[in-house]
């Protein structure tokens, strides 16, 4: 018997009945349901910004919040796809969140060129930049843990990407919460203390993915 024949004999003897992993749609819907509840509850617990009603009349603010929600949702779906070795044969969808993030970043940056809107709340002194980073990070911990717990059920051949997407999604929820809680619409502040840290968190997520998603 050759070593491959021996191996096949061993593997087939070891093979117990295994329940196939559910579809990406199942996991995405289940995760998103939990994350939507979490994403709604967290800003309520932390306290909504006092001028939220005014901000919701501002299309650019609504669009930014909607794009953050879309980024979170698309990243969850993409990370779920990444837990299948073949990305459930939809590999192009894994790239979608990167595109979403670029559009969001360009959208935020473009606002600095637009005429100032009186309804925007600009903090006189930006002294709480690190607090925003901390808020995004703390809010992102629970979603990251949840997504990683699901990803570990699969067998990802893209552990870096899966990890980055999981944390990108969680950071988008953190960013969304911070935008609903903090009354500061300064574009420089948003770029420096919201979006750049989100990229850094995603990079850290890639490293975590490498460690946690080995198989």
């Amino acid at each position, binding site marked *: 018997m050759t070593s491959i024949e021996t191996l096949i004999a061993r*593997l087939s003897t070891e093979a117990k009945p295994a*329940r196939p992993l559910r579809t990406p749609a199942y996991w995405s819907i289940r995760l998103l349901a939990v994350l939507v509840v979490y994403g709604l509850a967290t800003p309520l617990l932390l306290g909504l910004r006092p001028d939220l009603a005014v901000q919701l009349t501002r299309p650019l603010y609504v669009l930014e919040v909607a794009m953050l929600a879309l980024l979170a949702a698309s990243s969850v779906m993409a990370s779920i796809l990444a837990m299948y070795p*073949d990305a459930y044969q939809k590999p192009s969808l894994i790239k979608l969140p990167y595109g979403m993030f670029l559009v969001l970043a360009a959208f935020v940056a473009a606002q600095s060129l637009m005429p100032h809107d009186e309804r925007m709340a600009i903090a006189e002194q930006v002294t709480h930049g690190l607090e925003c980073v901390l808020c995004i990070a703390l809010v992102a911990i629970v979603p990251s843990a949840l997504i990683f717990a699901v990803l570990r059920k699969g067998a990802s051949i893209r552990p870096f990407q899966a990890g980055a997407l999981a944390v990108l999604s969680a950071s988008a929820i953190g960013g969304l919460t911070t935008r609903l809680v903090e009354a500061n619409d300064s574009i420089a502040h948003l770029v420096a203390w919201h979006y750049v840290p989100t990229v850094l968190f995603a990079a850290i997520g890639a490293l975590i993915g490498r460690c946690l998603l080995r198989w």
Partner: protein
Amino acid sequence: MVTGDSKYTVLANLLRCGLEGDQDAYAQFLEQITPLLRRMTGRRLASADVEDVVQEILISVHKARHTYDGKRPIMPWLVSIARFRISDHLRRHYAQMRHQTTDIHELEEILADVTDDTDSHESIDELLKDVPEKHKRILTMMHVEGYTAKEVGKHLDMNESAVKVAAHRAIKKIREKFGT
């Protein structure tokens, strides 16, 4: 006539039965994919590595079998796992080659000094005189007989990193001894 499509359908059915606990079907599935994996691996790797990598792929397919639900074509799933393991093997291979190159440079520096100072030590044997027997064996196998750290580990029943650490320590000891 058996077409490619029906062959893949058979493979998918065998794997599905395997997932339900049919060990014979699962063994057949693994047997049938082995020649495919050999061909695929043979195109990208040296023939000496093919059998090892095919075994690694089979183990990976076994570990990831629950990620196939039978609702999509089987070949892209199988090929993804195979490519992943082949790339993994190549990455390890090149990393090992880089590591070995460094070691050889270190040894060459030492050997150059040996030839400069012929009175005190004339041969590699003398150079290795005070090195523990196991370390001496490791150095000889790696740098004289040309084995890789992995192969030495297999031979001496040690893991690869332990072999590298032992080789490094032996070289350090020789350096210290001759003040290089």
